[in-house]
């Protein structure tokens, strides 16, 4: 799985102190989202459960847990790895699918409409460039061997 684990090397050091969940804004509102539990499941190898569940899509990536983890575990990066695994097994959230199509079409997360271009011109801002093949070229390069 290689680079998908960027930042996740210390995962096994987690001693379940729960500080990540204690400080998690999302958990406060939606108790079903528990970062410490995700780490535990990941450590136990329960990948299927994680990838098929909704939990990994609920993280705001606010980095509070990563910042305060006493074991220096990059929890947010691990969440990203899990999402990438889900994406690769075609389990991406609808939001991500929408983002993906925008990115691959225009190279931008928020494509500019005709109106947007006009507004910018009126405000005296420089025109925006779009590159429809850039993202797929980058993905191809990332996948290519070597």
């Amino acid at each position, binding site marked *: 799985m290689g680079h998908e684990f960027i930042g996740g090397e210390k995962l096994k050091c987690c001693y379940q102190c729960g500080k990540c969940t204690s400080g998690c804004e999302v958990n406060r509102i939606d108790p079903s989202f528990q970062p410490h539990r995700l780490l535990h499941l990941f450590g136990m190898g329960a990948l299927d459960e994680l990838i098929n569940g909704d939990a990994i899509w609920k993280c*705001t990536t606010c980095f509070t847990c990563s910042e305060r983890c006493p074991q220096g575990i990059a929890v947010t990066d691990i969440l990203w790895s899990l*999402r*990438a695994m889900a994406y690769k097994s075609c389990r991406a959230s*609808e*939001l991500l699918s929408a983002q993906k199509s925008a990115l691959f079409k225009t190279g931008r997360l928020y*494509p500019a409409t005709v109106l947007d271009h006009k507004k910018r011109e009126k405000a005296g801002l420089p025109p925006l*460039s779009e590159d429809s093949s850039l993202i797929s070229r980058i993905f191809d*390069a990332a996948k290519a061997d070597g």
Partner: protein
Amino acid sequence: MMKYALYLGCATPVKALKYEISARNVAKRLGIELVDLPEFSCCGFPVKSMDLFAALLMAARNLALAEERGLNIIGLCTGCISVLAEAKVQLEDEKLRDRVNEKLKMLGLPQYRQGVSVKHFARFLHEDYGLDVLRREIGAPLESLKFGIHYGCHYAKPSHAHDCFDDPSNPASLDQLIQSAGAKTIEYPEKNQCCGLTIRGTAENVSMKLAAEKLEALSIRGADAMVVACPSCCIAYENNQQLAGRKMGKEFNLPVLYFTQVIGSALGLKEEDLGFEFNRIEFHPTAR
């Protein structure tokens, strides 16, 4: 004259014209030249959820492009800056850098040689331009105003990517920046809370509640406006303000400004040069 590459990202030039306009004019007024690089692409943030390596490659591409021009990067979106800065730290690893450079070569792009710095515009003003110098430029201090600052998660986090320039649990640099414009800032316990925009599509209730809580905290404390430093946060608090209020059974009327608009006003720039007409909740700093 100080010269920097302006990294706009995806959201700012489309969703946050007032930010872009005010930032450009503040920079101009302070004698900072911002150069546009049309080749800049998305920072890679959304791609992290698809392929971490491709995301790193996108970030490295942007870094390498600025480096080729010999320009350091100033950005407006905290998310973009955080992603680029984190990539910079990751690419300190020689093996990873070699691998990334190989791919950049494949794409016909310049190599990344670790010779570029990445800073948010606010951090730049605080750290490089300097608060003392800024204070001397302030012509119309906003003494009667009281702002609630929202930093945004990626402004100072992950702290190692941002050279720990501000305390990740209790940041202060934006407060100081706004204070140097003469205004007061509010201390409130929810200061560090996330805007929730990134999960609006996957956990809408949580997202709305997060936004509403902060809007409420600042409304109660009598903030004249909320000040933000990131287009995404602004969407969460400004564009979604009525929606968040309705969902939670509250009514909000809290103007949301970019810090560049506030600084610009204090510098004496005109409202039209700071994109005030784009504010959804009307606000006129000089009228108060």
